[in-house]
Each structure stands twice: as C-alpha cells, then as structure tokens.
C-alpha cells in the first residue's frame, strides 16, 4: 500500500521515504491551490501545514485503488481548506500582496500589465467553486483526472466544469480589456 503513496512517476518501498517524496513533489503546488482557494496567504500556510501533518498521520489509510497519492493529498488539503472557510465564514481575498496586485513588474510591458490587471478583475467574477478549479488546474497543475478525484466528480464532468470556467474567464477578460 505504502509503495503507491508516492509522487507521480515515483516508486519506493519505504513508507517514510514515500511521504517525503510526496511532500517534496507537492509542497508548493498544494500551497498554491490552498492559497488560491482561501485567498489568504497566512491562512493558506497554516492549512497547508495542517494538511501535510494530517496526511502524515493518515498515510496508512491511503488506498491506491481510489486514486493517486497526489489526488489523495489534495483531497485532504481541500477538506482542511473548506473547514477553514466554514470556520471563518468568509472568503478571504486573494493571497497576492497588495503591491503585487497593483504594481507591474519593471520588466513587464505595459500590454502585459494591462492584461494581468484584466485577468485579476476577471477572477473576481468567478465564484468560489470556479476559483477552486482554476487553482487546481493552473496553480497546482493537476490533470483533469486528478481534479475529478479531488472534487468528487467524474473526469468528463470535471473537464466540462473546467472548460466552462475557462470560457467564463476568457469572456470576463475580454470585457475587462
């Protein structure tokens, strides 16, 4: 069982090593997803750390037949994030620092800066479920099958939801631009 608790394309027979690999392969992705969902950087740090701790404690419950270790880990993080959202009773603002949100990089062209601002405006029209899909796909880099496993729907359903969200975001970007 523990052999499959690994990062994608990695195999090991040592449980401790398996968790370490899972952690190293997913730490930043998991943080990016949780931060995108919570839109609160410090809360995302706490939730991500708690998710890894919980995953470590529950590592023996992992069942490879029910999905990859990566999807299992993101499922734990999702539950922790949703519990945090319930606790706070509010959706926090995006994790990005204010100066990052408004200021353009000195190396960035004016056109890119405008498009980035339009994107951020467009992101605000997405509801939390849509923002979660964006976070899973574009921040964490999960494929459609993994997204389906995390949010508990079929793969085709996950693809449909994701395409619908991307389409909505493209339209919003066009309008904002």
């Amino acid at each position: 069982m523990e052999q499959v608790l690994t990062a994608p394309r990695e195999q090991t027979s040592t449980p401790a090593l398996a968790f370490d690999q899972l952690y190293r392969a997913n730490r930043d992705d998991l943080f990016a997803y949780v931060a995108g969902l919570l839109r609160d950087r410090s809360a995302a740090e706490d939730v991500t750390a708690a998710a890894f701790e919980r995953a470590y404690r529950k590592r023996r419950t992992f069942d490879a037949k029910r999905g990859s270790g990566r999807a299992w880990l993101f499922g734990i993080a999702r539950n922790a994030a949703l519990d945090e959202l319930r606790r706070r009773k509010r959706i926090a603002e995006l994790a990005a620092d204010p100066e990052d949100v408004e200021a353009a990089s000195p190396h960035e062209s004016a056109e890119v800066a405008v498009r980035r601002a339009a994107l951020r405006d467009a992101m605000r029209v997405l509801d939390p479920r849509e923002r979660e899909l964006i976070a899973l796909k574009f921040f964490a880099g999960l494929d459609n099958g993994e997204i389906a496993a995390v949010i508990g729907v079929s793969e085709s359903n996950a693809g449909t939801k994701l395409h619908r969200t991307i389409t909505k975001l493209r339209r919003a970007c066009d309008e904002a631009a």
Partner: protein
Amino acid sequence: MKLRNREEPLDPRAERELEAVDLALGGHPVDPDLADLADLTALLADERPEPGPEWSAELDESVAARFRGDGSSFSLRERLASLRPMQIVGPAGALATAAVIAVVGVSSLSDTSSDESATLTSEPSEVPALSDESGAGETAAPVIPEPGDAEVGSAADTFDTPSGGGAGTDYYLNEGDTRTSKDQIAPGQDKRQVERDVTMSLSTRPENVREVSDEAIAITRSLDGIVASSQVSEAGRDATATLELTLPSRNLDAAIDRLTELANVKSLNEATLDITKPFTTAEDELRDAEAERRSLLQALANADTDVEAEALRLQIADARDRISQARAEFENIARRARLSSISLTVVGDPNADEDRSIGDWFDDAVSVLRDVAGVLLISAAIVIPLGILIAIAWLVIARIRRSRRERALD
C-alpha cells in the same frame, strides 16, 4: 447533496481547448486560433501563489521531524480518523459480536440452570421432609406451592380450602371457575384426571452418586417439587441413593427430561391411571353434602318448635361430618391428580462411564452444536441489523459532513 454526478460528454471543442491548455501549461506550442487561450494560461500560471522561503523552511523542518513524531498534538478524534475504516470496524465489530454472543450465551445458560445452581450445594438433610400440613388430620400430604399455575385445570385448583377449616366452616365449589386447557385434544379432556407415577433408576460412578442425588434434589426443587424422602448410602466402592420425589404433575415431564440427563438411565417406568371417575364421584358427594347442609340450615331457620329445631341441628351435624369426609376424599383424589411421584434410585457402578456409546457421545456433540448454533443465530439476529444501522448512520454522517464542507464554497 448530490447522490449522482450528472455525466456530460465533453464536446470536441471543449476537449480541444482543454488540450491546448495542457499544452500551454507544459510549455508547448498551441494552434494559432487558440493563441489567446495560451496567453491566458500563461497569465494564470504567473498568478500562482508561491510560498515564502521562511515558511517553506519551517515546514521542511516539521516534516523532517515528523511533526514532533509523538503525535501529541493530535486529539483522540484525529487519531481515530487516521485509522483505516476496517481498522476500526473490524475490531469494533468483533468486540460487539463477542459481547453479544457472551450476553446471549450467559442469558441462555442462566435461563436453564439458574435454579439448579442455586440449590446444587444444598445437603439432602436440608430438604424438608414430607409432613402433615393439611390440617385435616387424615392424610399426611405435603402442601405443594404452585405459583403461576394457570395452565392446569385440575379440580383441586377450583376448590377453595381455607386453612384451619373445621366444623361449621363452609366449603364450596367454584363451579363457574372452570379453566380449559389450551392443549385440549378432545371434548372434556380438561375434566380428565390422571395419576402419574414414575420409577427411575440411574447409574453413575460410585463417587458421583451423592452429586447426582444432590442434582436430582435441586431439579426437584426448581420445579416446585419436594423430596419426600432421601437416603444415600456409601460403603467403599458401593454407593446407592434412593429418593422419593413429589412434583406437580405439570412439571413431571420436565423433571424426567432433566433427571435422565444426570446419569445413565438403567430403567424408566411410568404408570398412568385415569382417576376421573373417582374424582367426579368425590366431587359430586361433596357438592351433595353441601347442598344437604344448606337445605337443613334453611329448614332450621323455618323450624317452628324446639324439638324440630333440635332434630335439624343433629342432622346438620351429621351433614357437616359428611362434608368433612367428602372433602377429605376429594382432596385426596385431587392431590393424586395434581401431584406425581418419582421413585428415583441412583446406583453406583464403577463401569458406568464406559457404558456410553458412540451414539451417546454423538448425541452430546449434536446437542452442543445445536446450542452453539442457537447462540450464534440469536447473536446474528442482533449484530447484523445493528451493523446495518451503524453503517447507514456512518454513511449519513459522512454525507452530511461532506455537504456542510461543500456549502463553504456556496
């Protein structure tokens, strides 16, 4: 709460655009008509929140230290949650099943042997001897308590005999209080009175004779009977016990069943005598005598002269004597129907155990298996529905918890 996810086939256009997104995320070129999608993907990827280096370093340390390793920061609930479902359900189910089996087994055993266990240690000398408690002074018959005797329709049950009743006491038959047996197989069956006596001989090893006789006494007492007499003689390798047991007739069959399980049955004779006719005769005589006395009392009340009254008083005295005699006769016959006797002899035999045949052992094995199967069946009848209820509750709770979490995104 969604019970099923609605399946929507991915249309070709959506599939193509999603593939373009995957290509763009992988840094690969996309078709020119989807260039804007690739730009959007790149912008979104740039928006990805990155963890701070300090937090990353702290988390790396925590992971390396296995989150302090001792798990002290985890509550019992989290520790339970970290177990596989089967790690909880398996032991818990086994524990519950064992508990139910134990309870069912103990209760079943206690139902069958509680009375025995309470009296197994009693000595024969403590058994009350047959004594004359009837007060009639005619028959040395013990008074047998018959609690809950609602099924037996013996005539004695319908005949009230106040204790200490002597001359001048009215005895009467409750004619309307006629009970019918549920086991009636022929009209008038409940009126039949049968006297039953059993002679039984058991053999066991000499050192077990006393124990068997003690158990026989315990069985008798547990079935509301008494030991009229008991005698145990032990001399070297010879041992014999002779018991005269008296039980309510309704418990005779149960007593025979249990006594025959104590040791090897050497002989068993049961004598049955229909005493319905003498019973009804005695009943009629008693009723007639009472009727005569009532008539004489009525005449006495209407007597005009002292001479006439004196003659009636003498007749009433005679009638009272006849009532007493008829009542004694009736009680005697009723007692014969109500009570049965067992003459039990327990003989010590050094080879008693060797008499057991393969069939006896087989019967014992079947009996044990039957009891075990019964206990398991009853346990299953409790555990399975309980398990189903727990599983349903578990599923419902999981659904509710999931639904509450999902509502955080609404």
